[in-house]
């Protein structure tokens, strides 16, 4: 049986004993839910996969599905590499993921409400107050403000990784302005167009309802039902995710606005249209807290709207996500999320956390500093793979630089073991090879929690690499969740 699958196509597929492979069992037989896929792949004529791959690449290019890379002179707009072979998740696996993410977003919202109101969790000494107060993402301005339905985070994109034991763990919560959902939708569209045969009889659950679900979530946060104006606030064309902003605005049929399109008057928010000023009720903002309102936050922001925060505080406009959610995905607060779940819900966390060292603790710091070559160090407030040291892939000079930064400001860093992300089959240079992947499902929370079955599977395209970020040589693939 095993030998049958070792045709030319799979000769370069390497399994690592300490890594979970999505497709193959350790003895090189395919897992049950990948069996159909393996058979199909073997049945294709030589050149078929190459042909489909180039057809999909062309689709992305022509549709202008691009992102912007910062700090790259060449500039600028690139397509996000798409891998042809879908990543498959079984019904049961997904059920666990869905329950775990639902539990997590509910607990994190209760946590946010608590720390901006009574602070019971500090009184009960579950989370130290100093940890929160010392985060630059904590917004004192939000103290005592009630947000609609008590929901602070209504749009979230959690990064999951599957580790050696085959279980999913949460790596990051991404509670501010998570991106990538347009790639989840585009990947499915392109996959269906260029390779319909792969789908037949597989029982793949759809993801296209995301736009509707997002609109419904945004609506559920508004005080009234009729005559509702919802807009998407973008930083503009120079933002790396601008394509996604235009895509989502079109999908929901709402206006895509920039800060300069909005103004406040008498505590209300208006947009400037050719027919005069139009009142705005809900803003799906894709701008960080810092840049939202120069009067309340960074005064040098040219992307924001003067007076927006006051209007928000007065309750005359809804922001999704709310202001101040970044505190809950501070990487040092992350370490406390299991305790947060237990505290508010009185339940055991369904999805585990990755082991995390807090560097303010002297013993943990000593351990980390003597093992920098083995660990991953991250700045607590950064995302997108920036501000990171990957121990095993770093030079001594880089390690020394991080050691100095940690000593200077231990609160600003955490460390985690180098994780062995699971591998999935990818079609690269005419061969099917194993590459490390993660998974970012998209969670919506308004009057209820909605998670479209699937998410964005990101791929580290270079052999052995563990970095999946689009800005650093990552790609992505379609993600299938099966009906059964």
């Amino acid at each position: 049986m095993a030998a049958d699958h070792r045709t030319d196509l799979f000769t370069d597929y390497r399994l690592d004993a300490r890594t979970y492979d999505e497709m193959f069992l350790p003895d090189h037989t395919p897992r049950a839910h990948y069996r159909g896929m393996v058979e199909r792949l073997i049945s294709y004529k030589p050149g078929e996969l190459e042909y489909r791959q180039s057809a999909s690449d062309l689709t992305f290019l022509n549709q202008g599905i691009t992102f912007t890379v910062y700090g790259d002179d060449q500039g600028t707009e690139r397509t996000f590499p798409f891998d042809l072979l879908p990543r498959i998740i079984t019904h049961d696996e997904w059920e666990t993921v869905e329950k775990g993410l639902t539990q997590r977003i509910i607990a994190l919202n209760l946590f946010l409400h608590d720390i901006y109101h009574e602070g019971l969790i500090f009184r009960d000494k579950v989370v130290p107050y100093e940890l929160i107060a010392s985060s630059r993402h904590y917004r004192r301005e939000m103290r005592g403000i009630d947000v609609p339905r008590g929901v602070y985070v209504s749009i979230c994109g959690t990064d999951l990784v599957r580790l050696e034991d085959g279980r999913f763990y949460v790596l990051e919560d991404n509670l501010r302005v998570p991106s990538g959902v347009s790639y989840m939708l585009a990947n499915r569209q392109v996959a269906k167009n260029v390779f319909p045969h792969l789908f037949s009889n597989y029982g793949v659950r759809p993801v296209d309802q995301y736009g509707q679900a997002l609109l419904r979530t945004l609506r559920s946060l508004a005080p009234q039902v009729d005559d509702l104006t919802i807009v998407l606030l973008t930083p503009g064309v120079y933002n790396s995710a601008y394509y996604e902003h235009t895509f989502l605005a079109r999908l929901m049929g709402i206006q895509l606005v920039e800060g300069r399109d909005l103004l406040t008057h008498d505590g209300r928010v208006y947009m400037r249209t050719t027919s005069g000023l139009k009142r705005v009720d809900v803003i799906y903002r894709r701008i960080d807290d810092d840049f939202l309102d120069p009067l309340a936050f960074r005064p040098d922001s040219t992307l924001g709207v003067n007076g927006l925060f006051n209007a928000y505080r007065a309750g005359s406009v809804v922001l999704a996500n709310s202001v101040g959610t970044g505190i809950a995905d501070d990487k040092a607060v992350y370490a406390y999320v299991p305790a947060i779940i237990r505290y508010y819900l009185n339940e055991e966390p369904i999805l585990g956390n990755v082991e995390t060292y807090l560097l303010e603790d002297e013993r943990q710091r000593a351990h980390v500093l003597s093992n920098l070559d083995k660990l991953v160090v991250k700045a607590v407030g950064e995302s997108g793979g920036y501000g990171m040291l990957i121990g095993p892939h770093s030079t001594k000079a880089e390690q020394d630089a991080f050691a100095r930064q940690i000593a200077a400001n231990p609160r600003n860093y955490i460390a985690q073991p180098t994780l062995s992300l699971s591998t999935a089959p990818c079609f690269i240079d005419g061969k099917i090879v194993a590459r490390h992947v993660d998974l970012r499902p998209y969670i919506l929370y308004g009057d209820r929690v909605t998670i479209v079955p699937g998410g964005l599977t990101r791929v580290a395209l270079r052999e052995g690499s563990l970095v999946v970020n689009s800005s650093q040589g990552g790609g992505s693939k379609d993600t299938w969740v099966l009906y059964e």
Partner: protein
Amino acid sequence: MLSRVADHLYWMSRYLERAEHTARVLDVFLNRALETAPGAADGRLVRLLRGLDIQPIPEHLDVQEMLQRLTFDSSYSGSIVFNLTGARENARHIREQISSEMWMEINQLYLEVRHTDRALGWLNEPHPFYVGVKDGAHLFQGITDATMNHNQGWHFIQIGRYVERLINLVNFLNAQLPRHFSESPESDQPVERYFDLVALLKSFSAFEAFCKVYNPDMQPERIAEFLLFNAEFPRSARFCVDTLFSSLNSLADATMRHKNLKVNRVAGRLQSILSFDEVEDVLSTGFSAYLTGMKQQAYQIHDALFDTYISYPIEAALTN
């Protein structure tokens, strides 16, 4: 529609019109220069620059250098590249509002021009290059009409194009035509004079159209009459104002405003002047004074358009 989007559409259209106009005028200029009698070239470059409203006119003039600047100098606000870049940048900011066909055309045109810039020796063969810019702009207009909803946004594109076209026409006529009124027909070089007038018409792609209405006997009065008052020629002042007035009325309807808006009144007044005046009225006012007055009214239309739809004061909008 967002005011910012209207702003971008309007300017995209104006920049593109300006780029096309410059390409056409430079093409005709170079063509004319091939057969100029000795001595007659004096002052021609100055008149060209004045016609393109280039200020200040450089003291030391070198034809090759000026052409290079007017075509490829991206820091020079009169150049084709500068204006095409402006058009494309404005389109880029509202890419999701225009059709993808429109975006592809304007992007392609821009990339081709940038590519030519790097390829040396274009000056040996300038004609195909300028024709390429002209064709690209025409294609864009056709694609716009064929693929975009003829909604508010489309009207802003129309208004931008015809405001720019009107201003370009007025500037060019003012720089080129007056001397022909003062020169007697029996001047030293009737051939040169004839070809200068033909070149003037060709600068607006108007030679063939003119010959269908008048005979090819080049009278400056007839040329002024044609380029100012002809209702059917798409580059005449009258045609520009008719079209933009009609788009302004559609905009007022679409945004549910009264039609006695200032911008409609200014444009309407200009339209009636152009409908009823004759070339004798122009000459009795003084050709330059008449054109200067028209240019001021074009600027007034622009200002009133922005005051009404784009950069209106908040207080005014709230009391409506």
